[in-house]
C-alpha cells in the first residue's frame, strides 16, 4: 500500500516552500515519526516526519525544488 508524503498546511499566508533536504533516499527503510524531509521558506524551516513505516519508494520533489501546500513530496510503500 502506498502512502504519500504531503506538504502540510503552512498557514493562511504561505502557499509554497522549497525542499531543503531529504534525510532518506529511495529504497531506504523508514519508520513512522522519523524525520524524512526538510522544507523551508525564506523565513523558517519545517521537518516532516514519515507518516508510516515502510520503504521510501519515490521522491517526486527533489532538493532545491519549489513545491506547494498539499503537493506530494514522495511515496512510502
Amino acid at each position, binding site marked *: 500500500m502506498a502512502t504519500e508524503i504531503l506538504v502540510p498546511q503552512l498557514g493562511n499566508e504561505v502557499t509554497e516552500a522549497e525542499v531543503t533536504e531529504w534525510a532518506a533516499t529511495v529504497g531506504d527503510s523508514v519508520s513512522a515519526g522519523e524525520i524524512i524531509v526538510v522544507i*523551508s521558506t525564506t523565513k*523558517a524551516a519545517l521537518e516532516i516526519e514519515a507518516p508510516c513505516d515502510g520503504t521510501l519508494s519515490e521522491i517526486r520533489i527533489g532538493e532545491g525544488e519549489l513545491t506547494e501546500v498539499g503537493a506530494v513530496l514522495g511515496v512510502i510503500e
Partner: protein
Amino acid sequence: MSDAALHRLGGEGPDVLLIHGFGADRLSWLALAPQLFPFATVWAGEFGGHGAAGNNVGKGTLTDLAAALEAEIAGRLAKPLVVGHSLGGAVGLVLAARGAVNPTGLLLLAPVGIGDDLDNAFIDQLPELVDGEAAFALLQQLVVRKVLITRRMADAFVDTLADETRRAALRTIAASLKSDAVPVLFPPGCPCTVMWGASDAIVPPPNVPTKGLRMLPNVGHLPHVEAVSEVASAVKELLEGAFPTSDAQI
C-alpha cells in the same frame, strides 16, 4: 508609541498569541502554528521594525514593545495564551506583569532575561549584516540542526535591511536589549511553562531552578523549530489548564 502589528494566522478555538524573537516575524512560526490550528485560534504579534509593522520602536524598550502590542490586542483578543520566544518571551512577561492582557497562561521559549547572559555579539551583529554569507554564518548559531537555517533565509534577512529605517529600528532594540531590565517574577496564579534548548548558544539556559522549566536536548535557540511537537503539546496542556470547562473547544 512604538509600532506593532497583529495577524490572525488560522485555526479555531481559544486565542493563542505568538510573539516572535529579535529579528524574526510572524512567518517564523511556520512549523508551530499549523500544529495549533486544530485546537486554537492562532495570532501572531509583530514588533516595530519587524514583519509588516512600521519601523517606529520608540526607545526600543520592553515596555515600549509591550505597550504597542497591547494596543493592537485591545478589543481584539480576550485572555489569550501567550507563547513568547526570546525577546517575545520577555515582552510576554511584561504584558502579564502589566495585567493589561490578563493572559491565561504563558509559554516562554528561551526567554531573554531569566537565563544566563545573552550573546551580545549576536545581538550587535544582527542589525549590521550586509551580506548573505555573514548572515548565514550568524543565523546558523540559532540551531543545532544546521539544515534548518538556509542561505535563502539569510539572503532574505539581509534584503530586509536594505531599508535603513528598519536597520535603525533593530539597532535601537538591540541597544535596549543589552541594558533593559527584564521582569523575572512570573505573575502569581498564571500558569507558566518555560522551554529551553539545552544547546542554546544565544540565550543560554538558566543555571538556577526556574519555575516550570523543561529542558530540550539537542535543541538550540529555536524550540519552536527544532522541537515543534513538544512545544505544541505544551500549548495544548496550558490551554487545557486554562480552559478546563466545556468551552475549551479542545
